[in-house]
């Protein structure tokens, strides 16, 4: 079978976790299907990146050019399309990350190859490819068959596949960049960090997470009182920040903070994977949600299926009693 390609994701030379996940998944897929795994690196300087991944692929193709210092979906798209056209890999795997989301659809459209996003699994059957992904707020999985083709593009969900050590010794191939300047219609300017507020939710042993189930801003008082009682800080899901009820630095999840407290209590949060990515490493997770099918119960250690407005005031008093 033709190669399996994995695109290396890094931010200014620092490899992102998704890269190791993609390499581990790609290696398993390659083994199962008797294929070669090729990692593709675009960077201004690739040495450190190569050192970190050289045991994890059969081959590493390196495209070094100053224009690849920062990620620009457009430069990547133009260059990667050239390489894929030439090498015709059976499948190219890219992370379903902010980086991948900006790149993949236009790349697949340019190449006219079947593509789908945010996959949890990929199965190869002869020349056919099917994938598993999620729909409807993570409540259902779907198995999709892609239109049969020689080459496919798939993006994979971050945090799904465990990274693994490798024992390969990759052959390194350096190739000229197909382009030498950033396209004039899309220029990278800079990265801007989030401004830090007064509360650092990553430093607390106990974090109370509140979600859209709180319904109204005024109801946050109930959560503040509960957090005070138990001795924790309040974090939240994205919609609470979108509504401007809490500042951005309280947001837990892929586009917010990653927390690892001893105790995380998710209240009125459904458990979207973007949220879960930010809190799944907590030692103990408790979820309070009125929907028994909420995906958060698949992540939690303990669950209460009930109305938060009925439970929280009672729970607060029990905690205070227990502390007294």
């Amino acid at each position: 079978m033709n190669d399996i390609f994995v695109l290396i994701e890094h931010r200014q030379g620092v490899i992102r976790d998704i890269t190791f996940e993609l390499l581990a998944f790609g290696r398993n897929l390659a083994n199962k299907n008797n294929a070669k795994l090729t990692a593709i690196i675009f960077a201004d300087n690739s040495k450190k990146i190569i050192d970190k991944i050289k045991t994890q692929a059969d081959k590493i193709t390196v495209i070094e050019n100053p224009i690849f210092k920062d990620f620009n979906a457009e430069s990547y798209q133009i260059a990667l399309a050239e390489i894929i056209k030439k090498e015709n890999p059976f499948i190219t795997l890219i992370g379903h990350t902010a980086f991948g989301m900006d790149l993949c659809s236009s790349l697949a459209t340019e190449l006219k190859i079947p593509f789908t996003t945010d996959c949890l699994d990929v199965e190869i059957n002869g020349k056919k490819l099917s994938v598993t992904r999620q729909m409807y707020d993570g409540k259902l999985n779907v198995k999709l068959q892609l239109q049969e083709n020689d080459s496919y593009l798939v993006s994979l969900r971050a945090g799904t596949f465990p990274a693994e050590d490798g024992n390969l010794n990759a052959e390194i191939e350096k190739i000229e960049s197909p382009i030498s300047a950033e396209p004039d219609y899309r220029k990278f300017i800079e990265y801007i960090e989030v401004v830090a507020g007064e509360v650092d939710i990553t430093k607390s042993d106990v974090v109370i997470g509140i979600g859209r189930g709180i319904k109204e801003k005024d109801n946050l008082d109930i959560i503040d009182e509960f957090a005070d009682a138990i001795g924790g800080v309040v974090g939240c899901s994205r919609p609470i920040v979108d509504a401007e009820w809490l500042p951005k630095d309280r947001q837990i999840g892929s586009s917010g903070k990653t927390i690892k407290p001893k105790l995380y209590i998710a209240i009125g949060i459904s458990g979207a994977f973007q949220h879960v990515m930010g809190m799944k490493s907590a030692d103990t997770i408790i979820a309070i949600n009125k929907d028994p099918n909420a995906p958060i119960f698949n992540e939690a250690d303990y669950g209460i299926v009930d109305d938060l407005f009925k439970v929280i005031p009672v729970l607060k008093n029990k905690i205070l009693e227990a502390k007294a």
Partner: protein
Amino acid sequence: MNIIVCIKRVPQTAEAEVKVDSSGKDIEKDRLIFDTNESDTYALEEAVLQKEKFGGSITVITVGDEDSEETLRIALAKGADEAIRIKVEDLDELDGFKTAQILHKIIKDMDFDIIFTGCLATDDAYSQVGTTLAKLLEIPHASLVTKIELSENSADAYRELEGGLLEHLKIKLPALFTIQTGINVPRYASLIAIRRAARKELNEISKTEFGEMKSNSFIEELFTPPVSKLAEILSGNPDEVSEKLTGIIKEKGLI
């Protein structure tokens, strides 16, 4: 500034029970509530805010069944000037690629400076339609935009990356932006505006006018996700569950 906004009507499934229907390839829709896709309401609001600043007009487009007329009318009530529905009765035959192709067929002959789409439709969750459409139209794009500053021929777009980091880009117009939630605070439509919008004419175009279009993918089956680890659910009334949970928290030495 002439702005096109692509919007979709989707079922609200975060709090609902979602069941696979007898075909195994679709869900039971009769008991679900439908509304405008969340990020599309932010995309529309952004269009209205930009129009208030720069003038111009807003056209909303949906590829959808008859029920999605309501979605278009809400958009008209919130400030869109024109509304187009590309009629598709069997929504299930659409995948992200096909939807983008249909949108491309109609938009390619329109006059626009900017297209806004949502960053993700919460039903199929592709995050694909906007960026595919941009490529088909051969215009630049930026996805997951949480801030945008427009000038005559270009835009400063700020994309939200992992950890909340922003990527600042300069993009030439015409361009397409997929809008992330939180970029603004969407308004509600006033009752008067809703009544006025109810009388407005919608443009309807049959998909068949565009000829055959290909899907990229086909649904084999829908199924409930396998559970790797299910929480121990504490049973009882609020008093009982609180008692149990306090015991667990105390036992773990967390209070």
